[in-house]
């Protein structure tokens, strides 16, 4: 089996479509994801929102966000199906695992640096409030 990757899928459903159509699309996505041994981590319906520009003569649309994990083949199939679906105005699939990984790494590195610098200044590690110790240090320096 191919490696599991994390994706974000956002699709915009036509404003003329009923709630059932939206639900139907969701089940379709679910079926495809299930077929490729993927998983839906989270589904978010943003409701009807104004579009920044007209798409297929529509000024608004229902946004649905799905967080998925699965293989690349799953995404190919999803994209193919979404492109064919008439009620879907737009869709976008973004692979997020690498970006989130990078973000996480920068966050931990920043925390480490802060900790190291605190230690270098002879301050106790991990203070309850960030500001109070800094002010105390400034007073000490004077």
């Amino acid at each position: 089996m191919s490696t599991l990757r994390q994706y974000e899928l956002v699709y915009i459903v036509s404003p003329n479509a009923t709630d059932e159509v939206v639900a139907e699309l969701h089940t379709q996505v679910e079926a495809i994801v299930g077929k490729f041994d993927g998983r839906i981590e989270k589904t978010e319906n943003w409701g009807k929102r104004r579009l920044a520009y007209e798409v297929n003569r529509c000024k608004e649309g229902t946004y649905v966000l799905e967080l998925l994990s699965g293989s690349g083949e799953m995404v190919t199939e999803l994209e193919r199906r979404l492109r064919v679906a008439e009620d879907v105005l737009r869709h976008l699939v973004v692979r997020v695992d690498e970006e989130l990984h990078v973000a996480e790494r920068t966050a931990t590195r920043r925390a480490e640096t802060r900790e190291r610098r605190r230690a270098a200044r002879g301050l106790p590690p991990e203070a309850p409030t960030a500001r109070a110790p800094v002010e105390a240090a400034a007073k000490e320096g004077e």
Partner: protein
Amino acid sequence: MAGKRSGGRKDSKKKKDDRGGKKSGLFRRRKVCRFCVEKVDYIDYKDARMLLPFIPERGKIQPRRLSGTCATHQRKLQTAIKRARQLALVPYVTD
């Protein structure tokens, strides 16, 4: 009195230093990357409200020299805006 004069000279010198390298004689605040200040690691394309300050009236992406964003964050911002455009969260152009 002599002391007073030297003090005055010192001040004027300092002013000149502050202004060095600026195009006009006006004092301008140094721009700081907003994402660095807020310690943002991931610029989310779904959050249109966060992207909007970087999209002036025309719909173009504001250049770094105007917004003061650092290179790393400008790059991330650019991808985020382009993704948001595809999803009609943010305009391509506005007239």
